[in-house]
């Protein structure tokens, strides 16, 4: 087989043969599939739990981890997974049960994030400031995945997804309805820590492929799109995984036949899909997601004296309105 310059055609079989002609591309597709499934499933829970900021911070933390691993000449995967694992534990220690003020929690997480970026910058500087290395840490190395990396990713993904399946139901309970879950005996605190660790693993795996900055293309966007499309938990999870998988493989495919980088295509596809779905939902249900759209009188009770006074003053008030220029 001689495919010197890939050329896209309408024949999908030929396209597929071109796409899989080189081992690096096969490994990219394999790694992409593994990461997409993992990110789609864990991302769905992350969006449900509103922990996207924690996820983003873990992605940022993966950068100094990878840079340190490069500096120390150890496998870069150790850097990614080590940093994200430690980062998850740090976030679990900083963020309480979510009860005492989300604002305080996000401020603390933000400081961790800034420090992590600074550390990463230092490590890159110590390494000699090679720009190519920095770029792949931040924007990914889709096309440089080795067979060994694929196997490692597969093992971590299987372990992570099995653990997620084992805690899925109580985790869902704790995410949706924490106070009742706690009263019913669900260890919400422990589940919170466990989920952050799972999230750390998913972020590390994704960052290895997409780079630290593009993690969200697979972790947030497909999950957010799925939650717009359906409120059914099982269907949403499946959709999230399928969408993550689709944008990854399509992105890889398009990038192979185009001069532009994979990261751009994957993020653009998932963003485009999200925008389309969002527009469709807005058009179909214009009031969705807007709390003020409720009919009056269904919100807070209005039995106190101010309401009473307004009613009492209703007579003259109405007359004024009717009289127009009366005031």
């Amino acid at each position, binding site marked *: 087989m001689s495919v010197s310059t890939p050329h896209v055609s309408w024949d999908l079989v030929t396209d597929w043969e071109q796409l899989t002609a080189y081992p690096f591309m096969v490994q990219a597709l394999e790694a992409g599939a593994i990461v997409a499934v993992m990110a789609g499933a864990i991302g769905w829970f992350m969006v449900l739990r509103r922990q996207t900021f924690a996820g983003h911070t873990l992605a940022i933390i993966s950068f100094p981890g990878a840079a340190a691993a490069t500096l120390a000449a150890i496998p870069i995967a150790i850097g990614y997974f080590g940093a994200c694992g430690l980062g998850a534990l740090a976030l679990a220690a900083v963020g309480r049960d979510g009860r005492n003020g989300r604002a305080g929690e996000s401020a603390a997480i933000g400081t961790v994030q800034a420090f992590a970026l600074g550390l990463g910058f230092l490590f890159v500087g110590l390494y000699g400031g090679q720009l190519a290395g920095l770029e792949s840490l931040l924007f990914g190395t889709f096309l440089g995945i080795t067979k060994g990396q694929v196997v490692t990713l597969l093992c971590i993904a299987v372990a992570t997804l099995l653990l997620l399946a084992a805690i*899925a*139901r109580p985790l869902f309970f704790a995410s*949706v309805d924490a106070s*009742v879950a706690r009263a019913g005996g669900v260890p919400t605190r422990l589940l919170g820590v466990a989920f952050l660790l799972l999230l750390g693993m998913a972020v590390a795996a994704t960052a290895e492929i997409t780079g630290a900055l593009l993690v969200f293309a697979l972790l947030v966007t497909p999950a957010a799109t799925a939650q717009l499309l359906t*409120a059914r938990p099982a269907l949403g999870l499946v959709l999230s995984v399928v969408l993550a998988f689709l944008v990854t493989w399509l992105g890889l495919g398009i990038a192979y036949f185009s001069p532009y980088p994979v990261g751009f295509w994957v993020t653009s596809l998932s963003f485009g899909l999200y925008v389309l779905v969002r527009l469709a939902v807005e058009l179909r249900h214009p009031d969705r997601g807007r709390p003020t759209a409720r009919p009056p009188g*269904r919100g807070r009770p209005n039995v*106190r004296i101010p309401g009473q006074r307004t009613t009492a003053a209703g007579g003259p008030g109405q007359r004024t309105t009717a009289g127009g220029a009366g005031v």
Partner: protein
Amino acid sequence: MSDAIALSGAAVSRGGATVWSGVDLAIARGEFVAVLGPNGAGKSTFLDVVLGLLPLSAGGVSVLGEAPRAARARIGYLPQRRSFDSSTRVRGVDVVRLGLDGVRWGMPLPAALSASARAAAAKVDEVVELVGASAYAERPIGSLSGGEQQRLLIAQALVRDPQMLLLDEPLDSLDLPNQAAVAALVQRICRTQGVTVVLVAHDVNPILGYLDRVVYFAGGRGVEGPPREVIRADVLSGLYGSPIEVVETPSGRLIVVGTPDAGGHCGDCGGHDHASDAAHLIAEREPSG
């Protein structure tokens, strides 16, 4: 049959400070009971004791004839809460279903594959029907009104066929028509299903007509009895240790006037609590004449 809840010489403390002490009460099974009192008097603490989340510092407690923790599985509990916000993209039926098996590890199988999942779905449909929420249970819970959400949450507390329901201020965030409707619903469940209902209330009036008994906490103590024997000037004055008046309106609403934290004037509603919202009207009208 043993009492639903029995306390004898009970005292409880939180963070070293005694919340209430010397409380004796007996709630029979199938009764509809309101727990009343000002903020901080220990109403939610009472629920914590019944749920076995907080041990007594003195005295004894039995719940459904057992120690509180042992009875936990037979109690449906609705905590005091704010409602689900509009971005919560989870259906009402999913929230109800969590009450049935949400604490179990693993992940649920689709109903098409498993008989127990079908049975669970049928049970969820049954309680949703019972609370009259069938029309909107499939919609995302965040898009529902406060009253609709509250009905689904009561369904969640009911889904395991509890012998007792503990409801912490279930009427608090509802407007008056919804307060009346949810109160009627809870009473219907109490009577038709034979469930003991213990309801913490801010305002006794929406449920006054349905109650068998009230428990009133104030001044570090608690008394219980039929509503009109407890919500009386002499009883409440004794509890608070200061003169309290109870006024009954021609329509039968009870207004408690003169609770120490209400004074003659109140600014906003944040810091105090009355047995009746109507007390606000009195208290706020007085200064302006």
